């Protein structure tokens, strides 16, 4: 694992069909901890995550992880809002990223067992993944993202539409991996979840960083009036 993967966004702009979706953004991401990205719908949260992950086509500017891009990508994993299940068994879903990386069978099996136990799916290894419940799918997606021990984990609203118990399990898993040194960058709509997990908070509005601070200061005393309104539950656009 590469320590201290810090990213610097320089003049990043993402435009699609003449509309600016993100930017201009200039920001230096903290090298560790858990960053929560919040903001109203359409603020550019997903685009920001994809930009950091390197899968978004930039119209301007650049993202610098301090290492060549393909090295950075190998150290990252991404969990989508609606989990993408390969039409295979739970086991094969977990093995997939390992086999892409050319890991041996024995090592792969050990890891699969470890992660399946960790997410409570050890007894369902041979079930088809597309038939799991929503919560099970998202846990599987999370385990599949973590199985390669990424240095950076992106999560795009991983708990949208999930029941309380699944949310609790996923959050405790996230706290675990954070403690073991994985950098987490995550978007959420759930302000409660943001308060529970955040080390620092990025407040996005109209494609730009409207406010930024440690979780403590941001939630106690946000510096921008829009952030205040957003935290109060007002409609911000």
């Amino acid at each position, binding site marked *: 694992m590469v320590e201290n993967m810090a990213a610097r966004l320089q003049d990043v702009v993402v435009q699609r069909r003449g509309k600016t979706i993100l930017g201009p953004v200039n920001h230096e991401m903290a090298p560790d901890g858990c960053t929560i990205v919040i903001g109203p719908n359409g603020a550019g949260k997903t685009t920001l995550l994809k930009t950091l*992950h390197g*899968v978004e086509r930039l119209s301007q500017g650049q993202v610098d992880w301090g290492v060549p891009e*393909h090295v950075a*990508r*190998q150290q990252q*994993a*991404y969990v*989508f809002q609606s989990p*993408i299940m*390969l*039409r*295979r068994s739970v086991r094969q879903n977990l093995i*997939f*990223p390992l086999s*892409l990386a050319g890991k041996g069978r024995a090592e792969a099996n050990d890891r699969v067992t470890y992660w399946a136990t960790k997410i409570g799916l050890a007894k369902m290894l041979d079930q*088809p993944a*597309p038939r799991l419940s929503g919560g099970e799918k998202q846990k599987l997606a999370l385990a599949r993202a973590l199985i390669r021990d990424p240095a950076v984990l992106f999560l795009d609203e991983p708990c949208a539409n999930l029941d309380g118990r699944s949310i609790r399990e996923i959050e405790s898993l996230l706290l675990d991996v954070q403690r073991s040194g994985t950098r987490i960058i995550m978007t959420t709509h759930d302000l409660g979840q943001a308060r529970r997990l955040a080390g620092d908070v990025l407040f996005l509005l109209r494609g730009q960083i409207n406010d930024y601070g440690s979780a403590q200061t941001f939630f106690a005393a946000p510096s921008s009036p829009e952030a205040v309104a957003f935290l109060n539950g007002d409609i911000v656009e």
Partner: protein
Amino acid sequence: MTDIWSGLQAAFWLLVTFDRDLVEITLRSLQVSLSALVIASIIALPLGTWLAIRRFRFRRAVIAVLNALMGLPPVVVGLIVYLLLSRSGPFGVLGLLFTPTAMIIAQVIIITPLIASITHQAMRELWAEYHDLLISLNTSNWQRIKTLIFDGRRALLTASLAGFGRAIGEVGAIMIVGGNIDHATRVLTTAIALETGKGDFALALGLGFVLIGLALVVNFGIHVLSRTEREGRW
């Protein structure tokens, strides 16, 4: 109606007596069409998948050409292959005309666009589903194609079976390039054409029923082998 009945009877007797010619013709039909199927699948499955995942300048044109080729009349393919393989044609030195190999070539040309086109449509859907994950995992093109082919194998099986159905039932092209030579290039469909020409409808129909039965057995067999039915959606 009497013709159909006597056709059924003829088919029955051909089968129960294990008619030597029938067995030979049937095996040759299978040999030619299965060979064509394997070759066409090796070309068409990756091609169709590739077309589904890659964006390049002439992609739409390639897909349009593929769809047009799908409707290509087999006799035209037969005629072109004939002219190419004829001793007076560019590939005449190979001496392939009027051999099972020539028939395989013609059938490959006929069914490859069909299989590729069905593959493309099925893979486009699967790719839409897998796109974000495979991009995020930084997969190479080849890894993407392999993953889609593996997970879309049921759709691909359907595509291949459609190709097989077209190949084994095809008569126009293989008549021209195979020549319907007894004990060399005669297959079920050309034998049917021959018997119809002789006015022997019962035997022609009998062979027709054997052909239908064969198509059913092969379809069913492939489904059982790959156990796709038991696995349901996948």
